[in-house]
C-alpha cells in the first residue's frame, strides 16, 4: 500500500468558558476521531483549549477576497447602525 495523504481538517479551539471558538490551524487525519486526537496533541499541549472543533477543510465555505468590497458594502454605509449616530441631551447618562 502506498503512502497516501489523509484528509485535511481545520481546528478551532475555545480557550476558556464563555469565549468564542477560534481557528487554530489544521491537521491531517484518517477520520474525525483521529483528527480530534491530533488536534489535541498539536494545538492543546499546554491547556490552550477547553473545547475543540474539527471540521473537514472541504466543508468550509469562505468569502472571496476579490469580491470583498461589494460583498461587505451593505454594512459599510449605514452610520445609523452605530450609537454615535444619535444625539442625546447634554448631561444625560444614556448608558
Amino acid at each position, binding site marked *: 500500500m502506498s*503512502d*497516501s495523504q*489523509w484528509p485535511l481538517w481545520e481546528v478551532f479551539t475555545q480557550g476558556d468558558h464563555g469565549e468564542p471558538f477560534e481557528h487554530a*490551524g489544521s491537521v*491531517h487525519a484518517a*477520520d474525525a476521531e*483521529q483528527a480530534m486526537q491530533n488536534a489535541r496533541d*498539536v494545538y492543546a*499541549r499546554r491547556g490552550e483549549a477547553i473545547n475543540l472543533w474539527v471540521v473537514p477543510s472541504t466543508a468550509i465555505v469562505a468569502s472571496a*477576497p476579490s469580491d470583498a468590497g461589494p460583498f461587505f458594502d451593505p454594512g459599510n454605509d449605514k452610520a445609523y447602525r452605530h450609537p454615535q449616530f444619535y444625539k442625546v441631551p447634554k448631561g444625560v447618562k444614556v448608558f
Partner: protein
Amino acid sequence: MTPNPALDAGEDPRVAAFEARIAAGESIEPKDWMPERYRKQLIRMMSQHAHSEVVGMLPEGNWITRAPSLRRKMSLIAKVQDEGGHGLYIYCGTETLGVDRQELVEQLLNGTAKYSSIFNYPTLSWADMGVIGWLVDGAAIVNQTILAKTSYGPYARAMIRICKEENFHKRQGYEIVATLAKGTPAQKAMVQDAVNRWWWPSLMMFGPSDTDSPNSGELLRWKVKRKTNDELRQRFVNLTIPQVQAVGLTVPDPDLRYDAATENWLFGPIDWAEFNEVIRGNGPCNKERLAARREAHEAGQWVREAATAYAAKHERRSTEAA
C-alpha cells in the same frame, strides 16, 4: 535566478496593488492574489523552516534515554514533542499556499529539501542539550520574533504560537548550562566545550551575510523578512554575551569586543566555507539525520496503514447501518 520586479510590475497591475497592501502593513491571506514569486519564496522558506523543526528533534532525541534525572528527561521529551508540533504548525501554514504536505515530506526524505545547517552537528555530551536549548533555540527566538510580523498571515500566526513555546526551551536550556557551569570542574569543562562547539554554528543559523544573501532583497521588500540576516545575528550576539558572562563561560572568539559607540558586541569573521559545506550536505551528520528520518517514516508506515484501514472500516459500518 534574479527576479525582475520592474518587469513583473509592468506585466500585471495586480503586482502594484499587492505591493501597496504590503506597504500599508496589511497581511496577506491564502485566498488573496499574490505574485507567483511571493508564493514560491514563502513555500521555500516555510517548508525549510518546517523541515528544520522536524529534523531538530533528532539531535535532542539522541539524549532522552540518557538524561541525568527524571526532571531533565520530562523536560527534554516535552521539548522534542514541541519541535514536532512546530513542524506541524508550519507545514499546515505552507499548505495554505497550495502545496501538498506529502510533497513536502517527500522532498525532505529524498534529500532535495534544505533545513537548518545547525542540526547537522553531533550532540556529543549532555551539556549539548543545555547549549542547544540556550543558543540554538535562543537564535531561533530572535529570528522568529521578527517573523511573527511577516506579511503572510498563516506564517505570522504559526510564529506567534511557536514563540510562546520557545521561551520554555530556552529557559530549560539555560538552566542546564547554569547548573553545569557552577558544578564540578569536569562539568564546567563539559559545558564550556559544548559552547565552544555550538557558538559558531549558532551564528551561522541566521544565514549568509547580507552581502551574500541571494533572496534577502526581495523578501525584505515584500516584508516576508523584516530584518536582515546580519541585523538579527548582531541582535542575538548582543543578547547572548551577557548571559555567557553571567554563568562564567566564554565564547571561542578572540576578536569579540564591546563597541561603546554602536553598543554592539563585535565578533570575528564567520567561516562561511564550513557553512556552505554543511548546506551542501557534507556536514558531520547530514547523512545520519536523513537516514534516521527515513527510518522513522518507514517504521511508521504500518501505523498510517492501520489508521486508514480503521477509518475505512468505520465508514463502511456506518454506511451499512444507514
